[in-house]
C-alpha cells in the first residue's frame, strides 16, 4: 500500500529512477550518480531518517562500483507501528571503477561518517567533503584496497605470512 504510494511519488519526482520491489518490505531504487544525493535528501524529507547502512559492491565485470544506501524510518509517535517503518529503501547508484570517487553525504546523514571512511579504506573510493578519510581498520599497506574483487587474499597471505595449505 504505502509502497505503491511511495513508488508513484518517486516516479513522479525522479523520472529516470528504476524502482522495483522483488522482496517483501524491500524497495530498490536504481539511479544514476548525479541524482542519488538528491534522492536521499528527498527521502529524508519524506521521513526516512534512519540511514541503516552504506555498502559498496564491486561489479568488476561491468567495471563499476555500486554504492548502496539503505534507509528506513523511525516511528512517528512513541508506541504505534505503521507500514512506513516496515519499509527498507535501498538506493543504488553506480560509479566508475577507474575514477572511484563520490560525494560524501555527511551533511544529510551524520552517521554516514564511519561508513564512508570504511568504504574509502576497503574499496578505495574517495568521498569528497569527508572530514577525515584516515585509516580505520588496517595498519598494513596493501597494494590494492582489499575488498576489491581483484585482490587475491590467498596470494597475499602466501606472500606475507608464509605458506598456506593447498585447498580444494
Amino acid at each position, binding site marked *: 500500500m504505502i509502497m505503491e504510494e511511495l513508488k508513484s511519488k518517486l516516479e513522479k519526482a525522479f523520472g529516470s529512477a528504476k524502482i522495483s520491489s522483488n522482496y517483501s518490505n524491500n524497495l530498490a531504487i536504481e539511479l544514476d550518480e548525479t541524482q542519488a544525493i538528491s534522492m536521499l535528501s528527498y527521502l529524508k524529507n519524506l521521513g526516512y531518517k534512519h540511514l541503516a*547502512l552504506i555498502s559498496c559492491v564491486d561489479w568488476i565485470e561491468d567495471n563499476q562500483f555500486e554504492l548502496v544506501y539503505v534507509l528506513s524510518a523511525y516511528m512517528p509517535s512513541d508506541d504505534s507501528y505503521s507500514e512506513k517503518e516496515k519499509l527498507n529503501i535501498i538506493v543504488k547508484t553506480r560509479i566508475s571503477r577507474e575514477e572511484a570517487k563520490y560525494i560524501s553525504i555527511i551533511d544529510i546523514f551524520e552517521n554516514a561518517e564511519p561508513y564512508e571512511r570504511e568504504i574509502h579504506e576497503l574499496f578505495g573510493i574517495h568521498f569528497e567533503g569527508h572530514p577525515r578519510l584516515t585509516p580505520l581498520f588496517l595498519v598494513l599497506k596493501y597494494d590494492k584496497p582489499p*575488498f576489491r574483487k581483484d585482490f587475491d587474499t590467498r596470494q597475499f597471505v602466501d606472500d606475507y605470512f608464509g605458506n598456506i595449505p593447498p585447498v580444494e
Partner: protein
Amino acid sequence: MRELELYFGPQHLGMVGNFSITLQVEGDRIVKADANPGYLHRGFEKLMEQRTWMQNFPLVCRINVVEPDHIELIYSMGVEKLAGIEVPPRGKFIRSIYCEMARVGSHLFGLWAYSNMLGFDTVAQWAMYHRDLLLDRFEELTGARVYHIYLRPGGVRRDFPDGFEERLVNTLHSIGGKVPDYNATFFENSVFEKRAKGVGVLTREEGMKLGAVGHSMRANGMKYDIRKIEPYAAYDQVDWEVHTSEGGDAYARLFAIRDEMIESVHMIFKLLDKMPAKGEVFTKTPNPFKWRVPEGDAYVRCESSRGELGLYMVSDGGIKPYRVHFRTPSYTHGLAALEKVLVGESVADVGNIMISMYVVAPEIDR
C-alpha cells in the same frame, strides 16, 4: 590546565573487547574522543565471498562473540529471502525461543561488564554465574557453549532434545528468582543511581541523527523494536510488550535492558506454551556444495540484544555470495555516537557509557 592524551584500550581493564579510544583529557574532563577500531578486523565479508552459502555459517557466528545467535539468524533470513524458502511453524517458534535465550544471556553478559565497570564485582559475578546456567542449556541444545551454529536456512538444525523445555523453564526460573536480589543490590543502589544518572545522555533527536537503535532509542521512550515493526520468526504470534524508559542516559538504558530481559523470559514461557507440539523444524535445502541461490539483492533486519541488526546481501546466482555486508548496531553506536557522547564526560565514565550503549568490538570491526 594541561591537556593529556589518554589511551583507553586496547589493553585496559575497563575495555570489554579489543577496542581503543584515544581521549584528550583536561583534568578529569574529556574534550575529544577518537574511536580507534580495527583490532579485530578479519575481513569477514571478503572471506565469505570465497566460501559457499552453507560454509559461511561457521564464519558468521564469529562476528559477534557475545551473542552469535542473532548473526546466524540474520544470515539465515537473508538466504531465505533470496532463495524464497519458508520456515515451518515449529522451526519458527524454536528460532524465537533460541533468540530470546540468547538475548537473556547477552544482557547478563552486559550486566557483568557494566557492573564490573562501576567496580561492582558482586553483581558482576552473579550475572556471569547466571549466564553460565543458560549456556548449559545452549550446550544441551546445540552442543556448544559459545558458537552454536544451530540455525540454518529453512529452520533450525535439530529439534529440542527430550525434556529440554522443562529444564529450560527450571533454569529460567532460577535466574528469574534472583531478580529481586539484583534489584536490591544493583538497580536500587543509590550509588549506581548517582553514577549512571545524567551520564552519557543521548537524546532522541541526537539519537535519530546518529542512527541509534535498540535500547538507546528505547531509553528515550520510543518503542523502536524490529520484532514489532517487522515481525520475523514467531514474534507476531505471542503477546508481548516493548519496555521503555525516559532520560536517554546510562541509567535509563540499564533499566531498558533489565525490563527487556525480564520480558524475554516471560516471552519464552509464552512461546513454549503456544508452540506446535509436533512438526518439521526445517525445510529441506539442496546439496550445499551445488546450491545456487537465485540472483538478486536484499536487505533483512532483526532485533539483536543491542539493536537493529541488518544484512545486505547480493547474489549473482552462483554457489557463493557475491557480497554480504552486515549492518551491526555497535557500528554506529561505537563509532558515530560514542565519540559525540563522550565529550564533556569524566574519564571515570568512559567504560560506564560504552557498556551502557552496549558496544561490542568484534561487531564493529568484522
